[in-house]
Each structure stands twice: as structure tokens, then as C-alpha cells.
């Protein structure tokens, strides 16, 4: 990375901390620190909602998905707009008018303390771990691609975020999210422009899309109804609907965003922004990946985009196999480039198209065998280099200046998500645990001080776990899997709370445990795609919760 790019990244990091601290107002009371005095405009909250959801993992792995698998991942978001409509007339007015700090606080009023404590504990455990993954994932990628020290990278991402979140509270989080969202979108648009501009002479954008389309990468929709397939129209629309309802309706990191809005109407409008913008934005990010695929048709990339295991392969008995594959890859790449060039001048020629499809399959075959060597040598059966395609393209092929902008955008994506998570983790820790269970009657200033230290403690935990998580590789997968066990079940509790008058605390508590157990069982024995687990969890909790409620006495309904 050049000096100019370094300067841009450093300038961004200094600016984001300064700006976060400058914009932190009304943070001399707990309500101001956690809810901004319920004073923020809808557009700021809406951008913060989107920035929180769009993490650095989204930037690197979604572009990688576009490169490897085309546009089909966009189906994941098809349920989101409908979820926003449902949430805007259900949980937004309920939570906002109940004047709660956390979603779980509402559950005590509706059910009982044990249901509140269990849901808050589940949130703290799952979000605490996922926060460390959100720090670790971009830190690992940037450290490998840029050759930086891993601990330094974790600190560069984590330390500034902890500082402005701890001092500035939710005001700092929201207003920095707004600007970070701008940097993220600018970075993605810059990448698209460079990718289109770098197409060879005679290859227009339309021809580039025809090349990608020849190998199925422009097909976004798959109407197959198969619960074992991860991304189909139906899994996105139904499973994605339940996931979005759970994430935006029950996860404190999102609920807290719209609790900061000026009014119920402003809170609703903040969600409508995601309803309108999310699918086109994700399509643009995936299109970036598809354009990278075309880019690497004409600009030779490495056989594997993650170079980390190469030293181990060189020292292993498989080094010879790997070198042979590299030579084979070079030949396969040249054949595919020639076939792609031929297809761009004879776009309707069936033979040229078949030759290109066969040449692409040959390249993929060599890459798959190389990945097999890596798995064999490292013992990591889930190893993949998909997340490294975008950072490799940025550092190798982007012009000076824009490299810094996109690295800053990756930092911005990571920091905006981490900040919101730290803020919500601190809120649940102080409101649902410390104030409710440990020190119930202390001055507001005491809780404010504890809130700031809780933010710092979660930040330190996330950074330490991030360094540790890297050594455990598969932990990231475990954390993501655990999240899908928990989300649908939590949604079921809120369905009982808001939609089933006869539900009571025992029903909700037992239902939640039954839902998580059912999801764990289904996930390990049926092998259905994870989006459907959210449906299973929500349905089991609702049914079991209602049954237990009916047998265990009258409901306690909050007025």
C-alpha cells in the first residue's frame, strides 16, 4: 500500500474518532447515552440501521459470493421489505410507547423476570461472540492481504471504535454510522467504476455481463422449492422474512436504533429506508463480485486468493502437487482468456459459448483441486478463499488513492457494526442485568459511569476474543450457526408477547427452551438450509408457548 493510501486510512481513523466525540451530545444521563434522548431524525436512524447491518464481512464475503456464485445470494434479502412493514406496525409502536431501553425489558412487563433475563442473556452471549467475529474477520483478511500484524489490525479496528462509543454513546454511534455509510457506498461505487473502466478494449459492460451470464453468474432467481438449498426465492422470501423479523425486531443492536427516533412515525420511516434500499444495495455489492469475475478473466489473478497457507504447503509433502497445479492453472487460465475474447466478438456463437463454459469449468476444477491440497495440508475442511477476492483486487488492481478509500470503507463497515453492537451490549448489561438484578437503586450518574465502563469492557472482550478466534478458525462458523439457533426462537417469544393474549411467562420461557432445542435437533439431523431454522424456531416457540400457557394459568397482560 502506498504512502497516499496509508495517509487516507490514518486520516479516516483520526477523523472518525474526532467526529464521534464532537457529535456526542446529551450524554450526561443514561437516557441520552443509550437512547439519545429519543431525539434523532428518521434518516439518521435509517442509515444507522443499514450501517449496523452492513459489516466488513458483508463487503468482503458478499463480493466474494458474487465472484464465485453470481447474483443468487440477493434472494437472501427478499423477505426483508415485508418484515419492515410488519415490524413498523407491531414492535416499533409497542417498544417506543412502552419507553423501554431494551427489547428484553418489555418482556418482563408482559411476562416475567425469568423470560427477560433468559432472552437478555442469550443476546449478550451470542452478540458478544459475534462482535468478536466482526472484529476478527476483516482483521484477518487485511492482515493477510496487506501483510500487517494481526494484533495491530485488530487494534486499528477495535480501539478507535471503543473510544468513540464509550465516550459518545449512541449519539456518536449514530452520527458516525451516517458518515461511514457514505464512505462504504462511495467505496463500492468506486470499485464498480474501476472494474468497468478496466475492461479490455472491445469488452463493454453489456458484453461483460454476457460473459458472466454464460456461466450462470447473472441469474439471481431460483424458484426451486428445496429446503436443503441455501439460497432460493422461497428460502429468501419465507426464511429471510423470519430472519429479518427476528434481527430487526428482537435483536437489541437493531431495536436500539429505532428507539432513538424522535417519534413512532420517525422510527417507522427509518425501517422503510431499509425496505426500499437494501435489495438494490446488495445487488450492487454482488454485481461488484460478478464484475470481478470478468476482471479476472482478462487480468490474471492468483490461483488462490488467500496466500496464508502457502508457506505450510511449501514445507509439506504436497508442495510438488501444488506447483503442478499452478502450472496447470496458468494453462487453463490462458485457454479461458482466449475463449472469453472469442466469445466477446462472436456473442451468439454456440460453439464459442460452449468453449468458454468448458474453459471456465477447467479453471474451477484446478482451483478446487488446489483448495483440496490446502485442506489436506492444513486440516481445515471448511477452508475457502472467497472472502479474499475483493481485498486482493483492491490492493493489486485499484489505483493509488482509491486503495486507501476502499480500505477505509472496509474499516468503516466494521466499525459501524461494532460500535452499534458495543452500545447495545452495554445497554443490555446495564439495564437488564446490573440495574435490574445487582444494583437496583442508584443515582443516574452511577449508571452512566457503569454504562461507559461496560462499553469499554465489551470492546476489550471483543478484541481479545478476535485475536483468539483467529486461532480457532471454525469458531466463526460455530458463532454464525449458534446465531441461527437463537434468532427464530427469540422471534417466537415476541410473537407470543405481542400477538397471543393468553400467553404467559411460563409458556414463553418453556417455549423458548423448546424452540432452541428443536432448532438444534433439526439443524443436526435434517440438514435443512439455515434460513429455514428461523421458521422452525418461531413456530415451535409459539406452539409450545401457547400450549404451556393454556395449561399453566391466566396470562399477565401489560396494559
Amino acid at each position: 500500500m502506498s504512502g497516499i493510501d496509508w495517509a487516507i486510512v490514518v486520516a479516516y481513523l483520526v477523523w472518525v474518532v474526532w467526529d464521534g466525540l464532537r457529535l456526542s451530545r446529551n450524554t450526561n444521563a443514561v437516557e441520552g447515552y443509550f437512547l439519545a434522548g429519543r431525539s434523532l431524525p428518521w434518516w439518521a436512524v435509517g442509515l444507522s440501521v443499514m450501517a449496523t447491518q452492513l459489516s466488513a464481512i458483508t463487503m468482503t464475503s458478499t463480493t466474494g459470493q458474487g465472484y464465485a456464485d453470481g447474483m443468487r445470494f440477493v434472494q437472501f434479502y427478499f423477505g426483508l421489505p415485508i418484515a419492515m412493514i410488519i415490524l413498523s406496525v407491531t414492535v416499533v409502536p409497542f417498544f417506543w410507547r412502552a419507553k423501554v431501553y431494551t427489547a428484553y425489558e418489555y418482556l418482563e412487563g408482559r411476562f416475567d423476570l425469568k423470560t427477560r433475563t433468559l432472552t437478555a442473556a442469550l443476546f449478550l452471549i451470542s452478540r458478544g461472540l459475534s462482535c468478536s467475529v466482526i472484529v476478527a474477520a476483516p482483521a484477518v483478511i487485511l492482515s493477510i492481504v496487506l501483510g500487517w500484524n494481526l494484533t495491530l489490525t485488530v487494534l486499528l479496528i477495535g480501539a478507535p471504535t471503543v473510544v468513540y462509543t464509550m465516550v459518545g454513546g449512541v449519539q456518536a454511534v449514530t452520527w458516525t454510522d451516517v458518515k461511514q455509510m457514505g464512505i462504504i457506498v462511495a467505496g463500492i461505487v468506486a470499485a464498480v467504476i474501476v472494474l468497468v473502466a478496466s475492461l479490455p478494449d472491445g469488452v463493454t459492460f453489456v458484453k461483460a455481463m454476457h460473459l458472466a451470464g454464460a456461466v450462470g453468474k447473472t441469474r439471481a432467481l431460483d424458484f426451486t422449492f428445496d429446503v436443503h438449498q441455501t439460497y432460493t426465492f422461497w428460502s429468501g422470501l419465507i426464511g429471510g422474512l423470519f430472519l429479518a423479523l427476528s434481527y430487526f425486531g428482537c435483536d437489541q443492536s437493531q431495536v436500539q436504533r429505532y428507539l432513538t427516533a424522535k417519534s413512532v412515525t420517525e422510527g417507522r420511516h427509518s425501517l422503510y429506508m431499509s425496505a426500499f434500499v437494501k435489495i438494490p444495495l446488495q445487488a450492487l455489492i454482488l454485481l461488484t463480485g460478478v464484475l470481478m469475475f470478468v476482471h479476472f478473466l482478462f487480468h490474471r489473478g492468483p490461483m488462490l486468493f488467500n496466500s496464508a497457507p502457502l508457506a505450510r504447503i511449501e514445507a509439506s509433502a504436497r508442495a510438488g502437487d501444488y506447483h503442478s497445479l499452478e502450472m496447470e492453472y496458468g494453462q487453463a487460465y490462458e485457454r479461458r482468456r482466449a475463449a472469453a475474447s472469442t466469445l466477446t466478438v462472436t456473442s451468439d456463437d454456440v460453439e464459442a459459448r460452449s468453449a468458454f463454459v468448458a474453459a471456465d469449468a477447467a479453471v474451477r476444477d484446478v482451483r478446487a483441486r488446489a483448495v483440496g491440497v490446502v485442506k489436506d495440508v492444513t486440516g481445515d475442511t471448511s477452508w475457502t478463499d472467497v472472502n479474499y477476492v475483493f481485498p486482493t483486487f483492491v490492493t493489486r488492481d485499484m489505483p493509488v488513492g482509491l486503495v486507501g478509500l476502499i480500505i477505509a470503507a472496509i474499516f468503516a463497515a466494521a466499525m459501524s457494526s461494532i460500535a452499534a453492537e458495543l452500545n447495545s451490549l452495554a445497554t443490555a448489561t446495564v439495564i437488564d442485568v446490573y440495574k435490574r438484578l445487582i444494583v437496583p437503586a442508584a443515582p443516574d450518574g452511577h449508571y452512566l459511569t457503569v454504562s461507559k465502563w461496560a462499553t469499554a469492557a465489551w470492546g476489550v472482550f471483543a478484541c481479545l476474543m478476535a485475536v483468539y478466534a483467529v486461532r480457532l478458525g471454525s469458531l466463526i462458523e460455530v458463532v454464525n450457526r449458534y446465531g441461527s439457533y437463537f434468532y427464530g426462537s427469540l422471534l417466537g417469544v415476541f410473537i407470543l408477547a405481542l400477538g397471543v393474549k393468553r400467553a404467559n411467562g411460563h409458556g414463553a420461557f418453556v417455549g423458548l427452551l423448546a424452540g432452541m432445542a428443536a432448532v438444534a435437533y433439526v439443524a443436526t439431523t435434517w440438514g435443512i438450509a439455515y434460513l429455514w431454522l428461523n421458521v422452525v424456531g418461531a413456530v415451535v416457540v409459539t406452539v409450545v408457548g401457547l400450549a404451556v400457557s393454556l395449561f399453566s394459568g391466566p396470562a399477565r397482560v401489560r396494559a
Partner: protein
Amino acid sequence: MSQSAPEAAGLGRLFLLIVLTETLVISALYWFGVYFS
């Protein structure tokens, strides 16, 4: 959670707009795939 009639009508129009927009975007994605494949 009761809502006034004008508020409910406004929400209804917004929901219709969201559903229409989503339908248009998904249709565009579908035809994008068909055209370029």
C-alpha cells in the same frame, strides 16, 4: 395498537409502495438474469 383513519391510510399507501417497489426490483433482477444468460 389503534391508529387514526388518516394514519392507517397513509401507512397503507406506503406498504403498497414498498410491495410494488420490491416486485419491480425482483422482476428487474429476474429479467437481468434472463437477458444476460
